């Protein structure tokens, strides 16, 4: 009851503060990097709530199925929110609004590329994913192929994706929290790492899902609130916003043109491919297809998820555009008060400054808490996906050859979570000063070039054999990594060489065909007895993939 009262109080305060700050008046006083109590209190409320949920979830996490997939008892709507939550990281909110702020229309193009993968996943993959898999997507690639080697390959590429994504999130989290909460970088990294471990170890997928759901709701509400308040200054007219934004932005009318970001066709197409098919190869997203009761709910969850994602991207577009006028023309958000100079806290802070400008410190605090919660939820999902690759694929299937007991398998995955957590903390601290912009790109690149081709071929192409899958998977993984390392973002920006050896920042357009080609060639020339059996086994897999007969069902309800 006391908690409820407190929430009521906070909401009341939020409402009054919002009204008080709805006018255009802005206070020029900056509390830069001072400890932000609004944010900390709201974040503590979030942690208290999610800890309560973790405690409740811990009591329900008994079997491996509970741990990896919440017993398959999540509804389509809940899962849709959770997928949207997994997909909308803090980088999405801050990075994309900053991109619109800086580049205008280019940011909106990026968002469409991020979104367009969803319908494709639903039309071509969701059905078979749900009908063939149980805990991880390797269940599908290894369905009729050699368990040991194919699962090892899938686990390695999953872990590569998870590690890069995790590291990008951790470094981002440390910097963001340092800035927003006024906490030390190391303290921020440790608190993210340890909270994540608690959620995943005790609450498994049940807790991870609920953390994700709560955070998705907070993010949707917070973003919408800022957008409404910002738009109210322009009489809710998109034309007014664009008119004023193009008038003040340094790009002028070019603001609404596709610009420098996608200057050459190869980059544009490669980015489109990478984002679209990378989404379809992210292990923590694919895992979400197994948390629902049946294929019906799996389809519904994609419908809800893509609805939320597409709505939120349009909100972010408005945040970026209104930010150009509200934040970009206000000296108090720039270092030294110089309009057009460097934004306080760096370029990614547009959404945060906007929240402060339209809703005062309380709204800033709320959005900061949302950003922290977002990071926490995303790293939890990633850690769980990584742990399942270790415990379910490598330990239970490869090392123990399916003879591990459920209790030891869960124990192994909990140990894996602890290891991943500490690796993330240590790397997060080591990489504090590094340019990590390439890591998310690399994660998507590997997902698109290593995970996706083998996964889609194993579902659709009868002729895929173990040898082909291994060549395709490892070939895609290696080429994606090599292309990124040789590109400007690593070769020049990180290693410090003069010129990049690979001219494009996006590897997908080159790495994906390599993976498909290798998988095709080595399947075709594989004349072994095993290959023949694997091709024959496609028939049964095909029927199960189409009908769902024999697929894993829900074991418990939540």
């Amino acid at each position, binding site marked *: 009851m006391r908690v409820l009262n407190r929430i009521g109080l906070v909401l009341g305060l939020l409402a009054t503060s919002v009204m008080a700050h709805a006018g255009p008046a802005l206070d020029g006083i900056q509390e830069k990097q001072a400890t932000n109590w609004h944010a900390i209190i709201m974040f503590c409320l979030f942690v208290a709530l999610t800890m309560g949920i973790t405690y409740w979830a811990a009591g329900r996490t008994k079997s491996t199925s509970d741990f990896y997939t919440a017993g398959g008892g999540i509804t389509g709507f809940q899962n849709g929110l959770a997928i949207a939550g997994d997909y909308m990281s803090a980088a999405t909110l801050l990075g994309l609004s900053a991109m619109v702020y800086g580049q205008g*229309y280019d940011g*909106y*193009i990026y968002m*469409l*590329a991020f*979104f*367009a993968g*969803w*319908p*494709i996943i*639903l*039309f*071509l993959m969701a*059905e078979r994913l749900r009908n063939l898999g149980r805990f991880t997507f390797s269940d599908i690639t290894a369905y009729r192929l050699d368990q040991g080697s194919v699962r090892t390959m899938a686990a390695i590429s999953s872990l590569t994706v998870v590690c890069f994504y995790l590291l990008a999130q951790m470094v981002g989290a440390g910097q963001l929290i340092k800035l927003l909460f006024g906490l030390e970088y190391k303290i921020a990294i440790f608190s993210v790492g340890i909270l994540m471990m608690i959620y995943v170890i005790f609450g498994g997928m049940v807790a991870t899902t609920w953390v994700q759901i709560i955070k998705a709701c907070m993010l949707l509400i917070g973003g919408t609130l800022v957008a409404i308040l910002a738009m109210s200054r322009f009489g809710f007219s*998109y*034309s*007014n916003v*664009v*008119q004023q934004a193009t008038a003040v932005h340094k790009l002028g*009318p*070019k603001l*609404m*043109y*596709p*610009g420098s970001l*996608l200057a*050459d*066709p190869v980059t*544009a*197409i490669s980015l*489109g491919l990478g984002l*679209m098919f990378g989404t379809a190869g992210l292990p923590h997203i694919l895992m979400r297809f197994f948390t629902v009761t049946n*294929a*019906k709910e799996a*389809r*519904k969850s*994609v*419908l809800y998820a*893509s*609805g939320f994602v*597409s709505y939120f*991207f*349009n909100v972010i577009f408005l945040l970026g555009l209104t930010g150009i006028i509200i934040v970009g023309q206000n000296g108090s958000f720039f270092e030294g008060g110089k309009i057009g100079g460097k934004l306080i806290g760096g370029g990614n802070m547009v959404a945060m400054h906007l929240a402060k400008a339209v809703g005062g410190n309380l709204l800033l605090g709320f959005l900061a808490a949302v950003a922290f919660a977002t990071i926490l939820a995303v790293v939890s999902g990633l850690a769980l996906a990584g742990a399942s690759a270790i415990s379910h694929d490598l330990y239970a299937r490869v090392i123990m050859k399916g003879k591990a007991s459920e209790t030891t398998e869960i124990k192994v995955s909990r140990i894996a979570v602890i290891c991943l957590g500490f690796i993330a903390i240590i790397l997060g601290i080591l990489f504090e000063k590094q340019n990590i912009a390439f890591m998310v790109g690399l994660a998507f690149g590997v997902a698109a070039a290593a995970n996706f081709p083998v996964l889609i071929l194993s579902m659709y192409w009868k002729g895929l054999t173990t040898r082909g899958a291994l060549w395709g998977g490892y070939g895609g993984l290696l080429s994606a990594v090599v292309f990124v390392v040789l590109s400007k973002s690593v070769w020049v920006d990180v290693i410090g060489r003069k010129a990049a050896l690979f001219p494009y920042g996006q590897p997908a357009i080159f790495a994906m065909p390599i993976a498909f080609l290798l998988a095709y060639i080595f399947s075709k020339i594989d004349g072994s007895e095993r290959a023949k059996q694997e091709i024959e086994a496609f*028939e*049964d897999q095909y*029927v*199960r993939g*189409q*009908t*769902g*007969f*024999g697929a894993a069902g829900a074991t418990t309800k939540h």
Partner: protein
Amino acid sequence: MSSEMYEHMRNNPKFIKLVAKRGRFAWTLAFIVLGMFYGFVLLVAFKPALLGRPIYQGSMVTIGVAFELFMFIFFWLLTAYYVRKANGEFDELTADLIKDAWKENK
């Protein structure tokens, strides 16, 4: 036993009908999305000026923004259409198919 069930289903003409119907439907939708999306990407790459033009003289809304917003909504409506059909018509066909296979298995 599973394998026999799959055998029954595979030989049922309803299975062939289901697979053909759903496959055609899913691929059609996928081609619409892929065609529009990559068509748009090609416009971005080769005809950026076109996308920056207003939808009519004096409007602040550019062709690029209008087309993208349309795609955001239209793609989502396509997913809704797919879910509706798959959860209704196709799932009924599938349930029917499994029932037939059980009968044959007895």
